[in-house]
């Protein structure tokens, strides 16, 4: 590596982990949260289906 570039690379590399962590945490948190909500919604929809079946069964009786 060109030795005169070292200082600039050092400056950039010093900050890099924090920048990467910043973007990483933000994305990961959003994805996890949205995943959690979607899973809850899917479970609820399943529940709606089951309940609908039992309502139908009861009205058939």
């Amino acid at each position, binding site marked *: 590596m060109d030795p*005169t570039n070292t200082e600039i690379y050092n400056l950039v590399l010093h900050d890099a982990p*924090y920048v990467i962590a910043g973007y990483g945490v933000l994305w990961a948190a959003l994805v996890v949260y949205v995943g959690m909500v979607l899973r809850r919604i899917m479970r609820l929809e399943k529940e709606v289906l089951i309940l609908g079946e039992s309502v139908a069964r009861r009205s058939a009786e």
Partner: protein
Amino acid sequence: MKQLKVAIVLLVVGGLLTTAAFFMAFYTAEVQRFGTITVAEQLDTVIPLESVTADGFQYGRPWFSQKIFYFHVPVAEASFLVFGVAAFFAIRFLMTKKREYDTKSRMAMETSLIFVILTMITGMLWTRASWGIWWEWEPRLTTYFIMTLLMIAYFVLRNSIEDEERRATYGAVFAIIAVIDAPISFFITRLIPSSHPVVFQSGMASSNLVPFIVAQVGMLMVGYAIYTMRMGEEILSERVEAVKEALED
């Protein structure tokens, strides 16, 4: 589930926009500089040469940690906006006493809380990179921290009340009182000396402004998508509860 579809479309578009902003931040946005460094030989870098002095070649000191700006500021401004929306719905609830406004207010508050936490995390990482410390009791950081505590207090208050109508009313009242801190936090860097950078005071190069706006729009879409999704979930769970009760009778 039309709502859910809208939410997912918005989520995808918002995700694409913020991802685009992410790439623009690193590929097209100008590297911000603060101060200069002088080196003996001319460098082959993306950082433009400022001047040639007797000591050597002078370059702008690259400010790499500033790249967090393209996510940190959009998510922060979205958090203020969504907090305002939550307070707006709180006022609507107190005026009309309709339950849907209470649910909307709560969902907006939850979305805002997520954004606030993300702002705090990205902000702390930037503080560490740029100032060398994780936290400083500095006006902007402090008032924003207080805002986070107020939002947490909102949910503590709600969870400690059983009666539904009372919970909604108290939540709305507290949301309205708490929102007073948001403008204080937003404008404080312009009012009293603070080491937190103030954006848009000196203007920005368009290569910096474009990714910022793209990220801001994307973030607002993500926020609206989260809000809509949570609303859909809430409506669904209310319906499930109602059907369950009807079945038990």
